[in-house]
């Protein structure tokens, strides 16, 4: 069994394998921000941040931070050669217009038909959806990177979401520390399995049925 901290690394490493050299990608807050650390050496992607930049780089060295240079998580970042800046309207026009190869983001619930819930729990404080609804409506490939179960051990992959949606039928792939699923017309398809877990264990932890791909892959150790 993996420790929770390891789970985040396993998820990020596996999600990185779904990205291709040359992709323009938007990474959500949390686990997705770890992905650049685990890209294969021959895969170079350009990161989009919805507050208006393509081609941002790692955090600055101490003392080199610039209040005018942040990502959508409001963290200080840096410029990579070839980066560009633009306003929010163009930033989302390029998202909505289908110009991003992929977005990777977290979720509270995902349904077997690709519905996503990740922005509000009724009765609790509402922080807002930010750019998540636009991202999942616009990116060519929507990848959810999340831990397989809630902190209470309940499934997050369900026949139907119980929480208010961020998008309907928008998720293409789910990556967890246990398994990777693609979502097709007939629901969930298991496409990669972490060898630390059995298919039975994945079935027990998953709230919806799934089929197994004939080309099932194994997570890299």
């Amino acid at each position: 069994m993996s420790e929770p901290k390891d789970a985040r690394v396993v998820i990020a490493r596996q999600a990185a394998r779904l990205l291709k050299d040359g992709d323009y990608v938007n990474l959500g807050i949390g686990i997705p921000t770890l992905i650049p650390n685990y890209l294969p050496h021959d895969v170079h992607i350009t990161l989009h941040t919805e507050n208006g930049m393509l081609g941002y780089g790692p955090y600055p060295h101490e003392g080199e931070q610039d209040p005018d240079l942040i990502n959508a998580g409001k963290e200080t970042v840096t410029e990579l050669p070839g980066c560009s800046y633009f306003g929010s309207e163009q930033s989302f026009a390029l998202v909505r217009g289908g110009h991003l190869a992929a977005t990777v983001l977290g979720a509270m619930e995902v349904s077997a038909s690709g519905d996503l819930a990740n922005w509000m729990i009724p009765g609790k404080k509402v922080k807002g959806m930010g750019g998540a609804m636009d991202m999942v409506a616009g990116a060519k490939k929507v990848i959810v990177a999340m831990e397989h179960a809630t902190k209470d051990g309940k499934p997050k992959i369900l026949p139907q979401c119980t929480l208010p949606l961020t998008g309907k039928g928008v998720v293409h792939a789910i990556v967890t520390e246990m398994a990777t699923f693609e979502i097709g017309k007939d629901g969930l398809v298991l496409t990669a399995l972490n060898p630390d877990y059995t298919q039975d264990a994945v079935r027990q932890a998953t709230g919806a049925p799934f089929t197994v791909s004939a080309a099932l892959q194994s997570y890299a150790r």
Partner: protein
Amino acid sequence: MNKTTASAAEAVKNVPDGATILVGGFGVCGVPENLLTALRAQGAKNLTLVSNNAGLDEFGIGTLLKNGQVKKMIMSYGGECKAFEEMALDGRLQVEWNPQGTLAERIRAGGAGVAGFYTPTGYGTPVAEGKETRQFDGRWHVFERGLRADFAFIKAWKGDVLGNLEYRKTARNFNQVMATAAETVIAEVEQLVEVGGLHPDHIHTPGIYVDHVLKGSKYLKLIEKLTVRKAAAHV
């Protein structure tokens, strides 16, 4: 023509109670700090503010919320401001949630004379409730209205006395589009230059959109989440 205004107080003196104001910025980045500080002192009430975020408890819009000046927020994310969360939860503040890109496009449409548009964003979610939906090319879309306001408060890096503006890095964010969509547009700048002091190809907002230019007297330019690289880290 000289659009400069002597002080932030002078710039905001005609904002009436009940006004709707577009406020540029993303988090605390690219925020019209001086105009918001002056508006707090001016005291206009029952305001509707259109802004991506709600500032912080001690900075920007958050200070107007705490001062009881705001009736309604039209926004996409309020996670960083406790005053906002409390007031939204207990009903003292009306909140209209917009997906961030829909908010930007509504303002773009408002500034470009477009009454509304169909977008796939938000279909099947709470933001589509009560709105017209329509299928185009096999995909469902939600009808969203263009958005205009009485005032826009904009922050730019450089500006000239004609109101031409140049932004810096990610401090551009909503400022550029908001400059197009209000009856009265007030821009504050870090550097005020003479006519000809900006390269025409580098002007992001042409002066036609801007009514008043203010040289900001003081910029805190806060950092919300300072993240730095550890010496050995590789990304």
